[in-house]
């Protein structure tokens, strides 16, 4: 393919054969006014083919920035460093951070190999063009053989797949004539048109009604089965994580503070923040008089952070002599379950 001419300029990278994406020590700085927001602080994770990884955290924890950095679509005031290794469909390993953001290689990956769906489907489409026009565009972009007619046919077929009734009529309508749920379906449709390896879903159901949420999640699951793509699922809603994901990474203030399988995270949470999140979930059998648990305070802005546990000032178990004063290393609870909390060291000491 003609698009590959840039690739040989890159250094060669090694990557575990079962992984399709490896993020290593990713940092993202955002310049806002005269502040330097350190939005992502050394995040590392990997994604296997066909699996779903949940990235969970409150708003402002850096989960969206991380995901957009993978696609290279953060605004220009963001700078990323570290490594984002990706195995292309052609089998090459690329460090995405080294690619020119608007360059041909990166563009040929976006939309066709790594896709992304967004939080607010209502604003994700331009109001001035028909849904069909905007959907066919992605086919025309990535398939050099596609014609307008074949792209349209492809889009129609996909619209049926994502469960949009009467697609022949819908395809020529404008976004404002669609409901939020329909738009999210159309967006998913668009982003899956080129059969990507990775789908990044940035809170795809947050802006939708609860009943629609379930439908969209169900749709994503069934499409994953059909197309076999990996999903990076970003959300603040632990309930959907339990439904959707294989692995979960809990983020707080730009760091992954706990990582494990869904089972490990839900049944054996270690970090006080993860525990807090789980306790704040409403439960079916919970009495209505009992108030929901609330984690006090708000996520601080990551400006001029000293080395410390980001959660220390909201943590019930904060150890004043340790937590605010040093970097927190990773502790392994059991194979595949990692926690970033000094309590683990204490525990280790006690047990040891």
């Amino acid at each position, binding site marked *: 393919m003609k698009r590959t001419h840039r690739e040989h300029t890159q250094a060669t990278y090694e990557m575990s054969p079962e992984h399709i994406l490896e993020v290593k020590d990713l940092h993202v700085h955002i310049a806002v006014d005269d502040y330097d927001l350190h939005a992502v602080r050394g995040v590392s994770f990997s994604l296997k083919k066909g699996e779903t990884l949940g990235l969970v955290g409150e708003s402002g924890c850096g989960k969206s920035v991380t995901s*957009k950095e993978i696609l290279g679509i953060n605004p220009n005031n963001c700078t990323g460093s570290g490594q984002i290794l990706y195995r292309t469909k052609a089998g090459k390993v690329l460090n995405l951070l080294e690619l020119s953001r608007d360059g041909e290689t990166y563009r*040929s990956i976006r*939309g066709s190999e790594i896709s992304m769906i*967004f939080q607010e489907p209502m604003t*994700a489409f331009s109001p001035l063009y028909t849904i069909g026009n905007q959907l066919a565009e*992605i086919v025309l*972009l990535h398939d050099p053989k596609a014609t307008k007619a074949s792209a349209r046919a492809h889009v129609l077929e996909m619209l049926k797949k994502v469960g949009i009734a009467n697609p022949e009529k819908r395809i020529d309508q*404008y976004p404002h004539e669609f409901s939020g749920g329909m738009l999210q379906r159309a967006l998913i449709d668009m982003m899956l048109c080129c059969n990507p390896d990775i789908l990044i879903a940035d809170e795809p159901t947050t802006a939708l009604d609860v009943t629609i949420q379930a439908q969209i999640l169900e749709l994503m699951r069934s499409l994953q089965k059909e197309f076999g793509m990996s999903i990076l699922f970003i959300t603040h809603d632990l309930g959907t994580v339990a439904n959707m994901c294989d692995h979960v990474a809990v983020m707080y203030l730009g760091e992954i503070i706990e990582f494990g399988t869904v089972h490990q995270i839900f049944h054996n949470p270690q970090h006080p923040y993860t525990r807090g999140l789980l306790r704040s979930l409403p439960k079916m059998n919970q009495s209505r008089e009992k108030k929901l648990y609330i984690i006090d305070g708000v996520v601080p802005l990551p400006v001029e952070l000293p080395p410390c546990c980001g959660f220390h000032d909201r943590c019930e178990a904060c150890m004043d002599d340790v937590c605010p004063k040093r970097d927190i290393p990773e502790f392994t609870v059991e194979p595949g379950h990692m926690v970033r909390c000094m309590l683990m060291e204490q525990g280790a000491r006690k047990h040891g």
Partner: protein
Amino acid sequence: MAKFIIKKLLIMALTVFLISFAVFFIITLPPGDFLTNYVGRLLAAGERVNQAEIDALRATYALDQPFIVQFWRWFSNIILHGDFGYSFSLSMPVTTVIKAYIVPTMALSIVTMLFTYLVSIPVGIYSAVHQYSFGDYAFTTICFLGQAVPNFLMAILLMFLAFRLTGDTMLGLFSPRFQNAPWSWDRVVDLLKHCIIPILVIGLNNTCGLIRTMRSQMLDELNKNYVMTGRAKGMKAAAIRYKYCVRAAVNPIAASIGWSLVNIFTGTTITAIVLNLPSMGTVMYNALINQDMYLAGSWLFLMAIATVVGTFISDVLLAWLDPRARKEYLKG
């Protein structure tokens, strides 16, 4: 769409009636009327006055009647006969005056508007895309300066500059030797030369304003979520800009064309007075100074009508260009 247009037209008709009433009220505000002042001036100059003739004129134009009667006669004459009354100071029907001046005024306005749009849209886009670049700062500065100079001063300065550079003040639309000459290539060149200053003066304020509007519209669009979608699709940044952002940013500006034309149309007023152009502005000014009420009133009325029509055109254009607006209008 038809229903929407008909409804708009009905509202316009009502507005026009109210406007004409307001216009008539305004032009009868000054104490006395043209004839009284005219007679006063004649007497002061020691001339004889034919009282019968004056009375006849007074009766013809119902100047001796109450306000409402005067208004109704004026209004119904316009609507029924297209008769805008009589210009006392120029001694001819207002319609004749308007006919003589409307073509150069419109021509000048349209050329100026073309200039405005052709300059401001590209510059606005450039400034937004290269926000905070040297070029952006340069254009922004020019715009601020351009908006800070009143039209008439700009006209005077350019006139002075033209005189310094070419020895000709470029007043009027033609040099004296071409004033009454038959059309020829040289005459056209002469006309174009004389148009430069008026276009610059009339267009500058509007252009500066439009550049800033275009820039901020474009910046708004560049930060919209669909730009993110476009990038996630793998589109080129430039392609997103031109297919989505420019179209969205230009829409309201293109739709303001009707309104903008009127703005320029009336903006010619002051420039025309200073540069002595054969435009309605000069006529209006003299009419106001001389209390030539029908002439001044008709002119004000026409300007207001032009605004109403211009707004209407803008509304329809917007509905045509933007599917969301189209839907709203279709609903009602």
